[in-house]
């Protein structure tokens, strides 16, 4: 199936990663952050000082004790970092020099059915890889999803190129697809970037429905794809994963060990040599950013500039992210900045003369470029929101906490990331993503 997205935009930002793998010295600290999993309340199993192998449980979900979170490396639990109200922020593991894996039973895909896959994935700590829409939380293993979506490309700014990452990795990916598609009685959708020549592992995938998605960001957002291919109505559940997760699951069943290695891209204009790295899930970014950054105040982001999480220079990459972005911190004032021609100021509107140079890439920073205001300009969100939902009306419904209205306006079909471009382009600087998050949380709370 072909889907064309017309509304949206690609932000022209500097710092895309070169298609080269860089070597890194091993990091000694790894973290599993319960805050990566939306609405999760962790219940600790290990204590500081305990020794764990890779694949051994660290904590589980208090609301569903089947869902376990395991250590990506072997080593000693060195710290459990807590925030306000003793909320657990991260569990740190000091890694051994050589990773020791907990042994799981190897399985061949021909003789396993859904219940075994679910059980093994839960025990091995791979279950959190599967998320669901609506709400973007970890999937509930007892649910029966109507379909499974895999977005094979990431259209967000400076995103890693999956066609490069998956160059060659054919059999493992196909094996993962075969396993994952057993989880749902419905269709498994593999969505490819119609604008590019996708990797062979994607093009030649079998047993799934391949869809071509054309158009600018947010065409890679799984929520947008679901909306155009198999929209969610109230009560429906759709599961989704990213392609590297598929490979991780395949490796788990083939080798019988929780090998949480993945490929990430280090991007952004503050990085001297933006490259790709092979890392293990939860690694400290210190070893890859050290000696690779330009001078000046910087913002470190796990994820992309639109939806990522702010981390410290020695912070840890988040569970669902495949990208680290480093951009300049925009903590400067600008004299009459709103009046100058602005040849060097990127804007999706044509209110600055930067529209004269269309192909230029910009060194964008974290300045807000103005203060928050009431909504004045209209029609702006609609240009960057390729879902048949009225974005501003939905935001307003959330602000007045009218659940019935939110449902009517289609809140089940959206997630915060779909509003990222709206938030970026907003003249009134309204924090749209956090408003939508609030609305989704409110519904989740009322429904459970």
């Amino acid at each position, binding site marked *: 199936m072909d889907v064309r997205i017309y509304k949206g935009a690609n932000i022209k930002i500097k710092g895309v990663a070169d298609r080269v793998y860089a070597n890194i010295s091993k990091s000694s600290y790894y973290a599993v952050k319960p805050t990566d999993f939306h609405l999760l309340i962790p219940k600790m199993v290990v204590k500081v000082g305990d020794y764990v192998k890779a694949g051994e449980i660290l904590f589980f979900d208090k609301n569903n004790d089947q869902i376990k979170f395991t250590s990506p490396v072997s080593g000693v639990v060195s710290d459990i970092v807590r925030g306000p109200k003793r909320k657990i922020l991260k569990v740190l593991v000091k890694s051994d020099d050589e990773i020791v894996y907990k042994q799981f039973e190897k399985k061949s895909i021909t003789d396993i059915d859904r219940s075994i896959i679910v059980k093994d994935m839960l025990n091995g700590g791979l279950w959190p890889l599967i998320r669901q829409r609506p709400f973007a939380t970890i999937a509930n293993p007892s649910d029966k999803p109507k379909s499974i979506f895999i977005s094979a490309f990431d259209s967000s700014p400076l995103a890693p190129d999956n066609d490069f990452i998956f160059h060659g990795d054919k059999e493992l990916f196909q094996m993962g697809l075969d396993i994952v598609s057993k989880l749902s009685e419905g269709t498994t959708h593999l969505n490819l970037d119609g604008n590019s020549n996708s990797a062979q592992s994607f093009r030649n995938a079998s047993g799934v429905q391949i869809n071509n998605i054309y158009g600018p960001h947010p065409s890679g957002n799984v929520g947008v794809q679901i909306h155009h291919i198999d929209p969610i*109505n*109230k009560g429906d559940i759709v599961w989704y994963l990213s392609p590297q997760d598929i490979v991780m699951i395949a490796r788990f069943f083939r080798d019988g060990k929780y090998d949480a290695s993945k490929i990430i891209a280090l991007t952004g204009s503050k990085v001297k040599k933006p490259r790709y790295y092979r890392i293990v899930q939860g690694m400290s970014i210190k070893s890859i950013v050290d000696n690779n950054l330009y001078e000046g105040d910087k*913002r470190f*982001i796990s994820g992309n*500039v*639109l*939806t990522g999480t*702010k981390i410290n220079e020695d912070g840890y990459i988040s569970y669902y992210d495949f990208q680290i*972005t480093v*951009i300049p*911190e*925009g*903590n*400067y*004032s*600008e*004299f*009459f900045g*709103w*009046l100058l021609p602005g040849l060097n100021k*990127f*804007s999706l*509107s*044509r*209110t*600055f003369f*930067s529209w004269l140079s269309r192909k230029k890439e910009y060194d*964008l*920073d*974290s*300045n*807000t*470029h*103005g*203060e928050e*205001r*009431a*909504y*004045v*300009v*209209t*029609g702006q969100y*609609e240009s960057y929101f390729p879902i048949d*939902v*009225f974005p*501003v*009306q939905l935001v307003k419904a959330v602000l007045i906490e009218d659940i019935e209205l939110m449902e*009517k*306006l*289609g809140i089940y079909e959206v997630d915060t990331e779909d509003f*990222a471009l709206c*938030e*970026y*382009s*907003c*003249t009134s*600087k309204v*924090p749209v*993503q*956090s408003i939508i998050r609030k609305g989704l949380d409110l519904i989740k709370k009322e429904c459970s």
Partner: protein
Amino acid sequence: MKIMQNILNSIKPHFEEGGKLHTLYPAYDAFETFLFVPNHTTQSGTHIKDSVDLKRTMVIVIIALLPCLFFGMWNTGYQYHSQLTSDMEGYQSIYSIFDHFLFGFWKVLPLIIVSYVVGLSVEFAFAVQRKHQVNEGYLVTGMLIPLTMPVDVPLWMLALSVIFAVVIGKEVFGGTGMNILNPALTARAFIFFAYPTKMSGDKVWVHGADKIDAITGETALGQLATLTNVDPSNSEIINNYSLFSSDGIYSLYNSFIGTIPGSIGETSVIAILIGAFILVFTGVGSFRIMVSMFFGGLSMAYIFNIVGLENNLFMSLPAIHQLFIGSFLFGMVFMATDPVSAAQTNTGKIIYGFLCGVLSILIRVFNPAYPEGVMVAILFMNVMAPLIDHYVVEANIKKRLKRIKINE
């Protein structure tokens, strides 16, 4: 810049929590952010934000208004000077283009100063009293109000209408972004109904017209209003209608260039089109509203052309000419497109614009008491806009419900 920054930093403590002047903090903040785009960084959500903000948006609208303003200044001088000399050709040798402009400049400038000083004072007072930031909305309203006025409007009257517009039109609803009616049109409507003698007739549109005898100081619409319910064979009527033919003073050409009497900013189609281009190109103004209102007006005028009652010569004025006179285009480009008071959904904007256009021409032709139908039409549609949006959103909701039913 550094010095300016240092001065601001040194006086800032007085306005912050615990300082003597803390109650005036919104005023200080407005001043500081006027000079400097603040050093705020993103705290949640997207890590980067677009360069555009409300100040930039408002500045673009003001830039789009400048052609109308400058032409209005020139036309003020031109109209005055051309009436002074009985010989229609003679004045050209006495006064240059620059003389016209300079004369108009000194007539129009006080209106703009009064509008901004009074309006911003009210805005600051509300901001201080309600402890919120000063919003940029008035930057545009303050320019629009003088442009919709006749040049001889008394300054106290202007001040009063500005206060009315800002307080009743905007602040009682909660300030910029919350208002139901377009504040600039509210000001004009106020002065139109409160002081009709200063806003209509043939003595207000040209400077000093009440002191000069035997001049044509009537607006095109005022002239046309005399042509309804008439005997078309009457020679005086024929004479009046001929003012709209190709060699009359209200000819299509003159209306297009703008050398006719009228409110300061409304007369020149060229100047308005330049403004419209700036608004549409930068994405600040809604082309949906502009285009649909244009076609709304055009179709209504065509219908009148076809119906063409014999005793109503107003109806038989060619459709395109009909749109070029009065403030139809000025209202279409700068008033109807006000995003706050217009419809907010894309479909809604098209319906809203179309009805604005239809009503403008309808009111103008059928109610000679309000020769300026555009003002009343847009204000009425401002009130109706939420209703239009409601039905557009309802349609979307129904579509979603239908999808569930198909699935079941």
